[in-house]
């Protein structure tokens, strides 16, 4: 079966532009996570969706960042008015349930470069 997919794989944008990053989780997975990985850094939690519950947005670094998940499946992470410090790899993961003892399956990530 298909794993978690993300698009685009690479995105180069100019400072001040908006970008949208897409994540297609594994079919049937109710939990979806977004992380940011800066060069040489660990994973920084951004946002978590579980079923129809309100998302946990506690990791979003500023109000320029937002995410939605339509129909409990595909998710889009939007960064408005991008800044150079937004340059990073954005990883999406899904799991079959929202409890953190379940394995998270990761996508290949989107490398965002803000010039």
């Amino acid at each position, binding site marked *: 079966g298909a794993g978690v997919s993300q698009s685009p794989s690479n995105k180069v944008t100019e400072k001040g532009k908006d970008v949208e990053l897409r994540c297609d989780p594994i079919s049937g997975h109710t939990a979806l996570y977004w992380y940011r990985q800066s060069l040489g850094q660990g994973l920084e939690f951004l946002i978590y969706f579980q079923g129809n519950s309100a998302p946990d947005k506690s990791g979003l670094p500023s109000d320029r960042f937002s995410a939605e998940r339509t129909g409990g499946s595909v998710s889009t992470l939007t960064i408005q008015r991008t800044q150079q410090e937004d340059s990073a790899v954005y*990883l999406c993961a899904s799991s079959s349930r929202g409890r*953190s*003892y379940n394995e*998270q399956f*990761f996508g290949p990530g989107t490398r965002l470069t803000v010039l």
Partner: protein
Amino acid sequence: AQTVTQSQPEMSVQEAETVTLSCTYDTSENNYYLFWYKQPPSRQMILVIRQEAYKQQNATENRFSVNFQKAAKSFSLKISDSQLGDTAMYFCALGNNNDMRFGAGTRLTVKP
């Protein structure tokens, strides 16, 4: 707050030898799960091994095993008979309820 610390930013090992990656954590919870994830240069993160905190027996997956010391809050990963394909970033993670925390990672290079 839960924290995960990996104190070794980079490590190297000769092919066929054994290497141990360190991880310490802090949590006030009694029930939690610990994970080691591998991220090869291709960026695809995959689960290597998982340990339930309530189990005393150390988890093992083929050449990968852990040394789980609950009292010391330590969770090290041992890779035996290292292979070139083991070259990757390794992340230790702590999961409890709906919170998952990752360490900063250890870059492991296996040398031929």
